[in-house]
């Protein structure tokens, strides 16, 4: 092990794991965004708000179940469906009437919704910081890599990421709705012409995408202080990830999230003060080399 450490110092390896757990969150949120962008072609700014609402809802549900270490599991179970319900109402109520509008309008409309969601969160939960309990089995730290303590919960995140990726892969490639939605992404009129109700396909995809945003919110909640404004920074990161990965490509979102998450954590290690700049620089470099994203876009 000492030989490994002489090449890769333990701080570096530990920081890589931190970056990968961040990648998990980014991937889950960005894949939802990418799914919606690819199939519905909506640049959904409100996606970040659903992530934030997910975090706040998980706080409330955890509190409802006593706020103890096991209450988080209930939050993890229930919250994504609450978010799915909210997104279903929004999609059927408003968005479905605007699919034909140009992207700029949709961007602004979803921004308007993010303003509304932001204030509703303020109205319901107030402006104070909230903290969500870390689930009992994953509290505390484990010594990893030369004894550097590493939060157990982050290891849990590292396991969740691949599971979500697998489920998504299965839904997109192996199920009927996945196949239809991929077809609709390429040619929605043709899909309609063969007798499929495209409107409901869109609704389903939108709800699945938003559910992922909510899931990201629940998963991130125990690791951060849940607060207003957490939507605004995340949505920019998610958009950049989707853009560098290739619009609508879920594996692109994974690749983008890896680039963003790792450059973020390693950047902070190398250059504590301005490390946060590095992921943005990475995005610029990627876009200069491949303007339309690393993987094939569905657009």
């Amino acid at each position: 092990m000492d030989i490994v450490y002489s090449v890769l110092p333990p701080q570096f390896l530990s920081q890589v794991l931190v970056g990968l757990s961040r990648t998990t969150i980014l991937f889950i949120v960005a894949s939802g965004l990418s799914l919606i962008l690819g199939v519905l072609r909506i640049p959904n700014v409100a996606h970040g708000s659903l992530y934030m609402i997910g975090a706040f809802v998980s706080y409330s549900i955890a509190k409802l179940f006593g706020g103890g270490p096991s209450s988080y599991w209930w939050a993890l179970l229930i919250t994504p469906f609450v978010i799915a319900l909210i997104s279903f109402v929004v999609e059927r109520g408003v968005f479905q009437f605007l699919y034909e509008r140009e992207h700029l309008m949709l961007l602004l409309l979803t921004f308007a919704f993010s303003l509304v969601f932001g204030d509703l969160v303020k109205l319901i939960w107030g402006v104070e910081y909230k903290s969500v309990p870390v689930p009992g089995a994953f509290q505390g730290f484990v010594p990893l890599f030369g004894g550097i303590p590493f939060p157990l919960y982050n290891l849990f995140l590292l396991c969740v990421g691949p599971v979500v990726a697998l489920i998504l892969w299965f839904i997109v490639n192996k199920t009927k709705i996945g196949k239809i939605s991929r077809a609709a992404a390429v040619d929605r009129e043709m899909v309609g012409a063969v007798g499929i109700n495209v409107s409901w396909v869109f609704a389903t995809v939108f709800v699945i995408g938003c559910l992922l945003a909510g899931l990201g919110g629940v998963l991130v909640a125990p690791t951060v202080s849940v607060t207003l404004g957490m939507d605004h920074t995340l949505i920019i990161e998610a958009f950049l990830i989707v853009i560098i990965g290739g619009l609508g490509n879920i594996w692109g979102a994974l690749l983008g999230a890896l680039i963003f998450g790792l450059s973020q954590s390693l950047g902070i290690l190398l250059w504590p003060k301005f490390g946060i700049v590095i992921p943005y620089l990475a995005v610029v470099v990627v876009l200069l080399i491949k303007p339309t994203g690393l993987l094939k876009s569905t657009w």
Partner: protein
Amino acid sequence: MKGNLLGRKGLLTGVIIILFLFILPFIFPRFYIYMTSIILLTGLLASSCNIALGFGGIYQFHHAVFYGAGAYAAALIITKSSLSPWIAFAAGPIVSAIIGLIMGIISIRLSKLYFGMLQVSLGSLVWVIVYRWYSFTGGDDGIHGIPLPEILSSANGAYYFTLFITGLSMFVLYRILKSPFGSVLQGIRDNPLRSGIIGVNVKRHQLMTLVIASFFAGVAGTLFVVVDNTVFPDMLFWTLSMEIVIMCLLGGWFTFFGPMLGAAALVALRTFVSSFTVYWALILGILFTLVIFFLPNGILGYIEQKFKKGTEVSVDRG
């Protein structure tokens, strides 16, 4: 250009508004003078954005960067150097234009949504630097109490300075759009391919437009320093950019004065609504959703359509 095509009625409205703006400090209390100053400079900011967005068809999604950069440049020169504040005021817009040029050169190869997102990425980079460079920019505290020349330190002095500079800038912007350059720009918006074929250097035109737009955003930022004596990192945050685009849409982005009107509506709304509730964003969001549904060409666009039924087809950029 459909700005002052309302004929005599439009001219009369213009004269009344200008007269009103001149005598405003004599009638209204200080609070309204401040608010009107903010409206004017925000209107200039939105108008400069609309040069790229509405007239150039360039998805300028992160215009606030140039506003903030101009303001920070002016503020930093005043507080960190011994140069005259007037030099700082001149430097603000130039710094913005340079940043606009650099960002433009990088992102102009892309178009539409990709262009917009690259602007957002580059803009976020600028924002992060300002936000994190605590020792130089003051970090998230910003810079407060920026000393100004005596003539600008009163509310009225700042107001008249803002009014004059905004008026001058709007006139220059108007002339630019009326010039052959402006016509070519709108040609590119309506059909970039055809414009390229007839020999227009499309990318260079768009780049030039971005530089002009960021220059005037810098002017607006500098005016904010004059009016408010502060700068803070939220001036460069992307949510402000979205609000700028909202102002353009709200007023009507195929009109010249639309963004100014949109800015006035938004600033006034925020000021009054936030005086009795903290949930003004909720109201703005709902209002804006309604505008998208029912007034896709904005307030001024709607009025012009009403006045000129059948004489002009509104530009469809779908």
